[in-house]
């Protein structure tokens, strides 16, 4: 199975064809995403256990998050997944400038998401709910979360998880955005077309995965016990 791009500039010397190279890249990216599932998965395990053991504390702490901002951010990321998919689509058709546009849109949406997270993190900071850096005295925390002072101690577990999980997620977005920028640059130079658009597709896989993590984080962190 050889492709028309026998001497395509992007063909590496150790692959027999662009198709072979693309299959390898795809398999490689999926293997990487598989390990990412297990990487985030450890945090989900910690979350699952402590949510079960300290449910009232988790519920009260979750109420302190602004679910509307969370929902907004979820919608933002879903939009960014659409723009990313459209970027891959455009690149596959060789429409470089359109692909660039969709990629820039994805970056903008990602930035919007991160902007909201900054607002949220700042809110937690001002309320003394950042474990290790700015955690209020137990009485203040208890009052803030409508918990007893004894339970307020365990609220640290919830907020530690909140910052660890959303922080790790945000880090993945921060890593992704310059890559999107690099792709936008190359798309504008007409580097991608039907026979070669692998980097766009692979970055798309990564970006969609980051979206999926958030799809789980939103209900698990923001919507505990809203009934």
């Amino acid at each position, binding site marked *: 199975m050889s492709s028309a791009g026998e001497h395509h500039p992007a063909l590496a*010397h*150790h*692959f027999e064809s662009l198709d*072979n190279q693309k*299959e*390898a890249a795809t*398999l*490689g990216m999926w*293997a*990487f995403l*598989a*390990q*990412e599932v*297990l*990487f*985030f*998965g*450890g*945090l989900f*395990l*910690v979350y699952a*256990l*402590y949510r079960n053991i*300290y449910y009232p504390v988790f519920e009260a702490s979750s109420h302190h998050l602004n679910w509307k901002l969370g929902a907004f951010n979820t919608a933002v990321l879903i939009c960014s997944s659409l723009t990313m998919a459209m970027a891959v689509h455009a690149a596959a058709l060789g429409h470089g400038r359109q692909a660039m546009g969709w990629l820039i849109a994805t970056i903008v949406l990602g930035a919007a998401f991160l902007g909201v997270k900054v607002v949220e993190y700042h809110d937690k900071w001002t309320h003394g709910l950042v*474990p*290790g*850096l700015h955690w209020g005295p137990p009485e203040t925390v208890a009052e803030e979360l409508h918990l007893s002072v004894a339970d307020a*101690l*365990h609220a*640290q*577990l919830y907020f*530690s*998880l909140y910052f*660890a999980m959303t922080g790790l997620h945000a880090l993945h977005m921060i890593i992704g955005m310059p890559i999107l920028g690099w792709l936008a640059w190359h798309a504008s130079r007409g580097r991608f077309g039907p026979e070669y658009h692998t980097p766009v597709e692979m970055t798309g896989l990564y970006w969609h995965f980051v979206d999926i993590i958030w799809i789980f984080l939103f209900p698990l962190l923001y919507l505990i016990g809203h009934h």
Partner: protein
Amino acid sequence: MTPAATSVREAPALPREHYLNVSYGWKSWLLTTDHKRIALLYLTSVTLMFAFGGTFAALIRLELLTPAGDLVQSETYNKLFTMHGVVMVFFFLIPSIPAVLGNFLIPLMIGAKDLAFPRLNLLSWYLYMIGAALGIFAMVRGGVDTGWTFYTPYSTVYSNTHVVSTALGAFVAGFSSILTGLNFIVTIHKMRAPGLTWFRLPLFVWAHYATSLIQILGTPVIALTLLLVALERVFHFGFFDPARGGDPVLFQHLFWFYSHPAVYIMILPAMGVISELVSCFSRKRIFGYSFVAMSSLAIAGLGFLVWGHHMFISGQSSYAGIVFSALSFLVAIPSAIKVFNWTATLYKGSISYETPMLYVFGFVGLFTIGGLTGLFLAAMGLDIHVTDTYFVVAHFHYIMVGGAIMAYLGGLHFWWPKITGRLYPEAWGRLSALLVFVGFNLTFSPQFILGYLGMPRRYHAYPDEFQVLNVLSSAGASILGVGYLLPLCYLIWSMRYGKVASANPWGAKGLEWQASSPPLTENFATQPVVNEPAYDYAAPEGEAAVV
């Protein structure tokens, strides 16, 4: 019986151009994407780390010559066994065979020009170096004393040592491991030569494929866990600290979910090496090829189901303990299948006793003992008696040192002519193998007895009645040390002064032996095509060995 001679009578000569002389200078090495050069970069690094780990071992054995804790303080002793474990596990055993032999050989064995992602391969090495640098930094600044297992809340709250840098060092090295595994999986799936179907692959490749699956699925969990330990130390999160509502047993679950499969990362590649060696030095097709291949996958899969056998006395539920115990018995089966198949390969084979084969015999015997004693430990009732004693220490050293390191040395010797174009001095090779075998057994067999009699691990002082066995163990360690130093010397010597090797000095089957010794940068002048099964040696009855 000497290795089968090539049909050409004149002395072999090095190929005019090969991967070692194609370019010179530090940039050509530090910026290389050639899998063979990267393998040598790894060889240098892991040897250095092994020297660190071995030094800690020497100090431990020195301390244990006398019952009193008189060489170092107990706090220092804690650091010695911790650093020994951290360095040996994360910076030697896990990378060694895959990153050195796997990197060098897999593309050659499948008829490819390189791994799927050569630049990622180089990145893997740099990540390893960064991880090692963090580990060395921690060592130099005073070490870590938590045990290589980093149990909480000691590691996260109470220890006053360099936990964060060590944990981060292992974290970074973990990503080196993940990327190597990823590279191997894609390479094996997508870059096999025409005609090289899955069931014609060398078992070395199958073994590394299974190992890579474990690396992908398991390593991220330890990465996250170590990251949480570091974060907990810095930000006082409390996930694993009872004082804040956290659970130390949860840490153990997360830790062992990786660290048990990790031992299979350490042994599966070694088993792959043994399959190659036993076939070549019996001049016989491996017995039960598909069983051996499938058993590698079975070990990889089952290995993920047994982690709780490290936690029998942790407070884990007895019910879970029973399940983990039963599953642990199950995971021994595929390993036993391999041992039976290697033995059956020897039967009616034309056996020769070159250095690599001596390591094979050492491996099969010692791995079997190590594996059987693992069953002792899998039995929950017996484990409660011997856990945290020298019985456990002996068990895993039989597998890791008697098994994995012997296979590593055997493989290094076997493929040395391919890697360097030189033969090592055979007499020195055999002497070293013998010293390693004798030294190893003297070091670790007394430890089974010590453990059974109740000597705890991680203690630097012990009752007087244990001294004789400890002295024997330390004596053995000194012999083992010599056995390791000799190859370091003569292998380096051979790179300059060793006899020039032909492309296939052993007369072995396998695509790597069709490349020159040393190979070209692109491995093969023309794309190999495969038409025969693996290990296609002639049938043993009455026939001369075929080159």
